[in-house]
C-alpha cells in the first residue's frame, strides 16, 4: 500500500562528488517489497520547489524500519535535500511502482546487473535479494569519471563487479556494453537501470534474453493519475495503448514499452 509519511533522517553522507547516501526511518518501510520501487519526496514545506522528486530505494532494512537512497544533488530539489541533517524530516510518498522481478532468476542461475550513474542505486537492493535467493550476480557499473564512482566495494561484496568510466579515469575506459562484450559475460537474466541510450543498447543486444529495464521519466503525481510519464507499448508503437512509468513501471520487460 502507498503511504505518505514524514520520515526522519537517520544519516546522510556525501559518498562521491555530489552523490549523497540518505537513510530514512518510517513505518512505510513495511510496505516495501520489490527492489526497484521508488519513493516520491516532498523536500520542503514551502512551495518552491513545488513538486515531489522520484528517487529509487537502494537498500531496505526492514528490521530497523529504515531505507536508503542514493542520489545526485543536481537541481534545486536534490540540492536542498542534500542540506538536510539527521533528525530533520522528509515527506515521503511510497513505495511506488513495480520493481524488478527477482524470481525470474532461479537459484544457481546468473543475473547480470547493469547500471549507469544514478541508475545504479536500485540495483543494490536487487543484488542483495538475488544473492539471498542463491542467484549468482555479476555487476557492471558505468560512471562518468572517477570522482563520481560509488558503492564499488558494496557491490563487490555481493558478487563479481566491473566498473567503466566514460573518461577512463577509473576502471575500464568506455561504456558498460564494452565491458560486457570484451569480457564475454554471460547470464540468464539481465537487469538494468540507467540512461536511455544504455538501456536501448542492452535491449538491442539481447533480444533473445530475459531483460528487465528500469525507466526514468519526468513525473507529476507519481501514482498513475496525471498521465505525465506515459510511454507507448512495444506492440503498438504509434497507437493509443500505453504504460505509465510511475505505476506500471518503472521496471518493464525489454520490448514491453518503446524506449
Amino acid at each position, binding site marked *: *500500500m*502507498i503511504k*505518505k509519511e514524514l520520515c526522519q533522517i537517520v544519516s546522510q553522507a556525501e559518498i562521491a562528488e555530489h552523490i549523497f547516501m540518505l537513510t530514512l526511518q518510517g513505518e512505510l518501510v513495511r510496505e516495501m517489497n520489490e527492489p526497484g520501487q521508488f519513493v516520491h519526496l*516532498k523536500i520542503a514545506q514551502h*512551495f*518552491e*520547489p*513545488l*513538486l*515531489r522528486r522520484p528517487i529509487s530505494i537502494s537498500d531496505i532494512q526492514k528490521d530497523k524500519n529504515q531505507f536508503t537512497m542514493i542520489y545526485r544533488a543536481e537541481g534545486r530539489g536534490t540540492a536542498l535535500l542534500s542540506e538536510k541533517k539527521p533528525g530533520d524530516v522528509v515527506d515521503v*510518498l511510497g513505495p511506488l511502482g513495480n520493481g524488478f522481478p527477482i524470481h525470474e532468476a532461479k537459484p544457481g542461475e546468473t543475473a547480470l546487473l547493469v547500471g549507469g550513474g544514478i541508475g545504479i542505486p536500485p540495483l543494490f537492493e536487487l543484488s542483495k535479494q538475488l544473492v539471498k535467493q542463491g542467484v549468482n550476480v555479476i555487476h557492471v557499473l558505468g560512471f562518468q569519471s572517477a570522482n563520481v564512482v560509488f558503492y564499488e566495494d558494496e557491490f563487490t561484496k555481493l558478487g563479481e563487479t566491473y566498473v567503466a568510466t566514460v573518461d577512463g579515469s577509473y576502471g575500464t575506459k568506455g561504456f558498460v556494453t564494452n565491458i560486457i562484450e570484451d569480457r564475454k559475460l554471460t547470464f540468464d537474466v539481465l537487469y538494468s537501470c540507467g540512461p536511455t541510450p544504455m538501456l536501448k543498447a542492452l535491449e538491442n543486444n539481447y533480444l533473445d534474453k530475459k531483460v528487465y529495464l528500469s525507466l526514468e*521519466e*519526468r*513525473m*507529476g*503525481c*507519481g*501514482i*498513475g*493519475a*496525471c*498521465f*505525465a*510519464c*506515459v*510511454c*507507448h507499448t512495444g506492440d503498438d508503437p504509434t*497507437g*493509443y495503448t*500505453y504504460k505509465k512509468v510511475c*505505476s506500471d513501471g518503472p521496471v518493464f520487460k525489454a520490448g514491453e514499452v518503446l524506449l
Partner: protein
Amino acid sequence: MKSLQISLPGLDMKNPIMPASGCFGFGREFSQLFDLSQLGAIMIKATTYEPRFGNPTPRVAETTAGMLNAIGLQNPGLEKVMNEELPWLDQFDVPIIANVAGSQEEDYIAVAKEISKASNVHALELNISCPNVKIGGIAFGTIPEVAKDLTKKVKEVSEVPIYVKLSPNVTNIVEMAKAVEDGGADGLTMINTLVGMRIDLKSGKPILANKTGGLSGPAIKPVAIRMIHEVSQNVSLPIIGMGGVQSAEDVIEYYYAGASAVAVGTANFVDPFVCPTIIEELPELVRRLGFDHISECTGRSWKNG
C-alpha cells in the same frame, strides 16, 4: 459539515471541494489512498470521442511555485470512459463532472450527448480552453462568438447542466463569460492554465516536448482570483474556482472573489491527501471567520458589508 453542503445546477454536494480535471485521472489511483465518497464531486480527466495518446514526453516541467503540463488530453476515449471508468466510479457516492474536449464542434457534441446519459454524470465541464491541443481547441476558448455557439449546441444535446471552463489566456475574460452565458451555460469553471514555457539551461531547448504547456499551481492564483472577481460581478452564473488552491484558506479566498465551489488541481500531486484535508479543515475555518455556511462567503470582496 452542514456548513459545507451546497447545491449548484445538477450538483448536490456534501461539500464544495473537488479535484480538478486532469489532476485526478478517473479516480482509481486516489481511491487506494482515501474514500472518494468524501469528495464534493469529481471532475474526471478530459474525454474525447476517440482515444488520444497525447503529446510526447517530457510532458511536465516545474516552475517557481508552479508547473507546466502538456499532457495533450490523453484519455481512453468516450466508449471506454462510458463502459469502464464511469461504471467503476459508480461505487462511490459522489457526483461526477465529465470534462468534455475535442478538436472540432462535432466531437464536443458527440461526447456531450453520450456521456451526459451516464447515471453518475451530474454535470459536464466544457473544456474550451485546453492550451495543449493543436488543432482548433484553443480558438473555442478565445473567440466569444465561437464559444457561445459551441455552448448552445452542446446545451441542446446534454441531459445534464453544463459548466464552461474558461481560458485565462484572453484579453477580456468578462466578454468570454458573457458569451457562454448567452449560449446557455449553467455555470462556469475557471481558470484553466496559462500558457507558459521553460527552457533547459544545458540543451537550450524547451523542457516540454510540446514546447509550451499550461501553467498551474500557486503561481497563477492571483490571476484566477482577479478573473473570478471580475466575472462574478458581470454574469449571474455560479463559478467553480480553481488555480493554485492548496489549503482551506485558499478556498475562502476563492469564495470571497466570487466562487461557489472550488477545485483542486496541481496540489493533488504535491499532497495526494489535500482534498480530504481541506474538507476536514474548512468547517472550523468557516466558523472562525464568523459564518454559518460557506456560501455566505461568495463574493464578499465586492458585495457590501
